[in-house]
Every structure is written in structure tokens, then in C-alpha cells.
């Protein structure tokens, strides 16, 4: 009987149904609806397609390629694995602005001479989240310096960590538009973009 069922499903061109995948699909859809109803920006970190999507109110705004999603648990932690089945409310570190020196503007402004003074774009950031989780966003080419390693070392608060390694080509875009209080959810099933929500080019 079961063999017949499998044959029938395969004949339809579908993979055998999997309850774990269906549960995950339902969980992610439910959490995303909750995030979309909030007034905050939210990220969907998708382990199936290795992508990080930023959305607001259900509208996809940008997608960043990830090279890896890594879960970090404290050595000796009682937990064997982190479920990551929550909607995490996070705080991003504030950016340091560049101070403007008052004075007459260069008129007419000359490109090249009047260089743009952009605030420095960081190459890594730690989002502190609730329920307790630290989301480390790091550019793929970023090699952590000794000082940062020591800071991470001394920062341990027994909270689980997730490291999102962002593809180099997308890193500056992401770090430039990192919202102050994003929500983050994790998905382990491919995200199907409904036709009406394809992102901006």
C-alpha cells in the first residue's frame, strides 16, 4: 500500500511529502506574517538558499548572498542544538557619524575636489537579540583582528550565537543599510517568493 502511495507521488513528479519540511514551512510562514505585521524591518536568513532577505511590512527590499550560516553554542552547553524557531528582536550597534566642520560651502562644488565624506562602513556587526541570541554579521573577506577576537572572547554571556557570513559583493550594501532594530527569523526550507512580492531590481 505504502509502496503504491510512493509510486503515485513520484508519478506526479513530487518528492515524497515530509512532515518536518511541512512543519518548518508553516513555522517560517507564521513567523514572517508576525514580522510583516510589525512596524520593524525584518531579515529572513534562509539556510536552504543561503540568502538574507530584508523586508518591511511584507515588502521585499533587498537580498544579500550568504556564504554560510553557522550556529555557535558555548562549549559545555547543555543544549545540543539551537532550535532557532523564534522571531528574534534585535538591536544593531549605532554608527559613528563623521563630524561636519561649519564653514562656507565650496561653490561651485567640484566633483573630485569636494570629496564625499561618508561615515565609515563597518565590515562586521553584532546584533544583540531577545530571546537571547547574538547574530554576528561578518563580511566573507573580513579577517577578525586580535582586538575583535578578544572582545568576542570577553563578551561571552552564555547566549547562543549565529554567524552569518555575507558574500563580499553584498557586504557594503548590507552594512550600509542595517536597520537599528531589526527582527530576524531563520528558515531551513526554500523560500517561495509569491509572484506579487518579487524584490526591487
Amino acid at each position: 500500500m505504502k509502496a503504491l502511495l510512493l509510486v503515485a507521488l513520484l508519478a506526479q513528479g513530487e518528492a515524497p511529502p515530509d512532515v518536518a519540511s511541512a512543519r518548518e514551512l508553516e513555522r517560517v510562514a507564521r513567523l514572517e506574517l508576525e514580522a510583516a505585521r510589525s512596524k520593524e524591518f525584518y531579515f529572513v536568513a534562509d539556510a536552504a538558499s543561503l540568502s538574507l532577505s530584508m523586508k518591511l511590512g511584507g515588502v521585499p527590499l533587498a537580498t544579500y548572498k550568504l556564504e554560510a550560516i553557522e550556529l555557535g553554542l558555548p562549549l559545555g552547553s547543555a543544549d545540543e542544538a539551537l532550535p532557532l524557531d523564534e522571531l528574534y528582536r534585535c538591536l544593531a550597534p549605532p554608527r559613528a557619524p563623521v563630524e561636519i566642520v561649519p564653514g562656507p560651502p565650496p561653490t561651485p562644488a567640484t566633483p573630485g575636489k569636494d570629496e564625499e565624506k561618508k561615515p565609515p562602513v563597518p565590515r562586521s556587526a553584532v546584533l544583540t537579540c531577545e530571546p537571547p541570541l547574538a547574530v554576528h554579521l561578518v563580511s566573507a573577506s573580513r579577517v577578525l583582528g586580535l582586538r575583535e577576537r578578544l572582545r568576542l572572547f570577553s563578551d561571552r554571556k552564555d547566549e547562543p550565537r549565529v554567524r552569518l557570513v555575507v558574500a563580499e559583493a553584498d557586504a557594503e550594501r548590507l552594512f550600509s543599510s542595517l536597520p537599528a532594530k531589526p527582527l530576524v527569523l531563520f528558515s531551513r526550507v526554500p523560500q517561495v517568493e509569491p509572484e506579487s512580492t518579487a524584490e526591487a531590481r
Partner: protein
Amino acid sequence: METSDTMGTAPAGAPDDVDGAESAASPAEARPASPKVDRNRWLLGGVGATLLTLSILFFLSTRLYVYDRLGPIEPASASSESTPAEAAALQKDIKDLESKAKRAQRSVAGMVPGSVYIVVDTAQNKLYLKKRDKVLHEALCSTGSGGLLKDPSADRQWVFETPRGNFRVIRKAEDPVWTKPDWAFVEEGKSVPDNWSERRDYDTLGNYALYLGDGYMIHGTLYQRYLGRAITHGCIRLGDEDLERVYRAAPLGTQVLIF
């Protein structure tokens, strides 16, 4: 009963390895340590070193993390032991979950505006005029520099960032007049005028302005060559043609998503 004044001296018959027993003796009375003392010192040293090493290892173990890659869910293979009834129940569960997921996905998809809306990407200084998933128009813009201006004569400061979030066009104006705020004078090193007529500027905003609230707007610019760069005081500047197109296409109430 032992009294406190006996604590500093070794009582007669006390063992040689009591701490301080030797140091209390004068150099003339010093004598070579017995093999027993040496052995005990080595023992104590060894125990100390071991404890120190263990403490360091314990400290390190409380600081270290073990990382593991998160991958997609592995589809579980069907159990060969399930009965037809169990398989049917499983199918029903899966269908229920899938239909719940679809309902939630449809709700999220339904939140995407069906009418024209504007998306501003501050990282790339681009503005998109969109309807559902379609990009109707794409334009280079300028957004906030992120600079910090301090007023040298007063305890106040401004950060020139384009605010991010969900906004709406609350007012539209042709040939808009800019009433220059205090920072416009402070930035140029000028004194802030008392007379409001001295604040009026008829050229800077271009031909059109779409107001987003709190003094932020989408407007034109005198410096079109700087489009594509983050140089504004928080407003979104567009070139003349793009501004006209956006102005005509976006009615009052249009949603503006800035990220």
C-alpha cells in the same frame, strides 16, 4: 588551649615544613632543608601548577564556542513500519500544515501595496517607483550624508541621516519654497537670522516636493552631478526629469519605504 601569640613561632616538636618556621630563624641558624621539605615543596608546587592549569582550562572552556553549519532540513525518509492508517494520518497533517503555511504566505503577499509605491535604497542611492513586484521607474538619487553638525554657539547638534522605515506622501507642492532651518546657517558658519523672510529659499528644492513629514521630503537639486552620492541633510534629492515623473505618478498617501 592554643592562644593567638603562639601562632608566629614554631612550637617545640613541630614539624620542619611549617610555613614561616625557617624564615623566623636567623641566617646563622639556617640549616639545609631536609629531603622531606624539598619533596613537600615539589608536591605543593605541582598541585599549585595543576590547579592553575585546570583553572585556565576551565576559564577557557567557559569562553569558547563550538560552531556548526546550519543547512536545509533533510527530508525524512518514509518509515517502512507505518501502517496505511498512519500514512494517511501523516498525509493529513502535512496537508494541514501546508495549507496553514499558504494562508500565511498569502497574507504576507497581500501586504505588498497594489497601488504605486516608492522604495528608496540609501545604500545605493537609488529610488524605485513600483507597483506590486513591477519596477515602473528607477532613478539615481542622493540621500543623507550621515554627517554630524554641532552648533558651536549652543548646546545642540544634528545628524544628517535619511530616516528609514515606512512613510507616506503627506503633501505635494509645485515650485516649493524652502524655509531654511537653523542648521542651514550653522553649517555655513553664519548667524541664525531672527527674521523669517531671510530663511526663505526659492531655488534649492527644484520644481516639485513630496513631503514625508518631520521636514523630510523628496525634492530636486541644484547639484545634479552629485546624484548617486550620500550628501544630503536627510532629504531625498532627485534629478529634474525623475522628480517630475515621481511627482506625477505618486498621489497623496503614496507609501514610501526607505531602507
